[in-house]
């Protein structure tokens, strides 16, 4: 596997070239942040500043979250008159991020032809909170990665501490099945193979093996910490609605406060609205200031989408999104009473296919 500093050099050269040759107006990447174990997104426009870009195990943010706002359609005819043409955007993508971009393309939120997708095979990124916790009483003042991928932290008294990678990788990365970007224009690193391909399934099964009362208790305990800041939603690339259903006031669906019933429904609805669209990037978990594992719910729905419909979010830009598609023989054993009528006519299916072919 290519060392991260070599990938970094390639990335800087690529970005510099793309900007200089005006193949892109804007390049989305990462740069050094003010605190260790983190990087911060960089929206680069000047080719000569490409040296600011970094690539390492702290490149956690899913940059796809910035794409919908770059391609917002004009709100009305008046805005359309003075609107600038949509930009050409280059973007650095890990496996999960690339699938988010594909999902956005599927949903017509971003035009594929305006994007230059620079993919990097990702061996996993560090969860800053986990890393800080393993240091116990110490505070890291700086952190880096060596050629073998070990994380080294320098703490306040100058000592260097090596962190065991498996202990500080983000939970989403420990369950990752798609480290290589699905669709890109260039690939700068890799190949990286997924390690524990059934880790997600095991975790879901582990939760499911508890009796229902215990599951409910654990779920309620977990979300009781929620302060309704909406960080999980804002950090998610798939939550791009101008006005979230749960923020609307006419009618108001749930209260705005921390009543446990409102918190429960917020999380259930958010999980359902991202079903079949969530790429398990973990941005929601990372954004949550209270340490809630929102992936408890999304993990289950991603597995259901796969088991029931053979669908994984963001695999193919031409695929019809999960909940816009259907098959006549979709499973329906969850019904209270499956019908006793003969199998439905195929005319409905043919009509639908003809409509889509137009």
């Amino acid at each position: 596997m290519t060392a991260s500093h070599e990938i970094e050099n390639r990335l800087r050269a690529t970005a510099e070239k793309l900007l200089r040759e005006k193949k892109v107006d804007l390049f989305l990447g990462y740069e050094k942040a003010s605190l260790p174990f983190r990087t911060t997104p960089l929206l680069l426009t000047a080719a000569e500043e490409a040296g600011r870009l970094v690539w390492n195990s702290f490149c956690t943010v899913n940059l796809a979250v910035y794409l919908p706002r770059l391609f917002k359609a004009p709100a009305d005819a008046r805005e359309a008159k003075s609107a600038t043409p949509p930009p050409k955007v280059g973007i650095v993508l890990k496996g999960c991020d690339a699938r988010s971009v594909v999902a956005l393309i599927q949903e017509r939120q971003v035009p594929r032809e305006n994007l230059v997708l620079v993919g990097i095979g990702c061996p996993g990124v560090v969860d800053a909170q986990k890393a800080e916790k393993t240091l116990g009483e110490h505070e890291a003042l700086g952190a880096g990665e060596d050629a073998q991928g070990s994380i080294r932290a320098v703490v306040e008294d100058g000592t260097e501490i090596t962190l065991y990678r498996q202990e500080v990788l983000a939970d989403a990365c420990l369950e990752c099945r798609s480290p290589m970007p699905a669709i890109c224009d260039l690939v700068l690193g890799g190949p990286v193979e997924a390690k524990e391909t059934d880790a997600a399934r095991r975790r879901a099964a582990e939760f499911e093996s508890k009796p229902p009362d215990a599951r409910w208790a654990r779920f309620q305990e977990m979300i009781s910490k929620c302060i309704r800041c909406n960080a999980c939603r804002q950090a998610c690339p798939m939550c791009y609605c101008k006005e979230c259903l749960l923020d609307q006031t006419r009618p108001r669906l749930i209260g705005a406060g921390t009543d446990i019933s409102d918190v429960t429904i917020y999380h259930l609805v958010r999980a359902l609205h991202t079903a079949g669209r969530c790429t398990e990037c973990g941005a929601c978990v990372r954004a949550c200031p209270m340490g809630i594992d929102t992936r408890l719910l999304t993990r289950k729905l991603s597995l259901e989408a796969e088991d029931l419909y053979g669908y994984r979010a963001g695999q193919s830009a031409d695929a019809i999104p999960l909940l816009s598609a259907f098959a006549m023989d979709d499973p329906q054993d969850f019904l209270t009473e499956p019908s006793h009528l003969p199998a439905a006519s195929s005319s409905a299916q043919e009509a639908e296919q003809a409509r889509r072919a137009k």
Partner: protein
Amino acid sequence: MQFEGIMNQTQSVQQAASKQAWEPKIVAFLCNWCSYAGADLAGVSRIQYPCNVRVIRVPCSGRINPAFLLRALQNGADAVLVSGCHPGDCHYISGNLVARRKFALLKALLQYVGIEPERVQFTWVSASEGGRFAAIIEKVVEQVRKLGPNGRLAKRL
């Protein structure tokens, strides 16, 4: 003055109601073209079925956002039932087929977090199935009666 009088009356009715044994409250979302018509047929044919159901008419089962079902439960429904046209017979061609996927995922998620599966139910009822509609309501009401009042998602104001 008049307002107060009406409010007092409402209060006494509610007090009387609360003294009676608990009866399940089921909110049923019925699609206009098939299931609502089926329920109507049951009524017109004088087929008796439990009066625990409050019906909400929607144009198509595909119009239903899972948030509506959760809100009904939050507002005190003990269970929700969604009924649409049989697959292949949707008035809007494929609304119920898309809805079928949404409902499957909703049911799986609710079960996963420990909510009783009988609280959220789905079925297909056609406009000619008045008797079947009544039978389904009977079945659902009995299942929910055994479960007891909805405690998990209800919101106490």
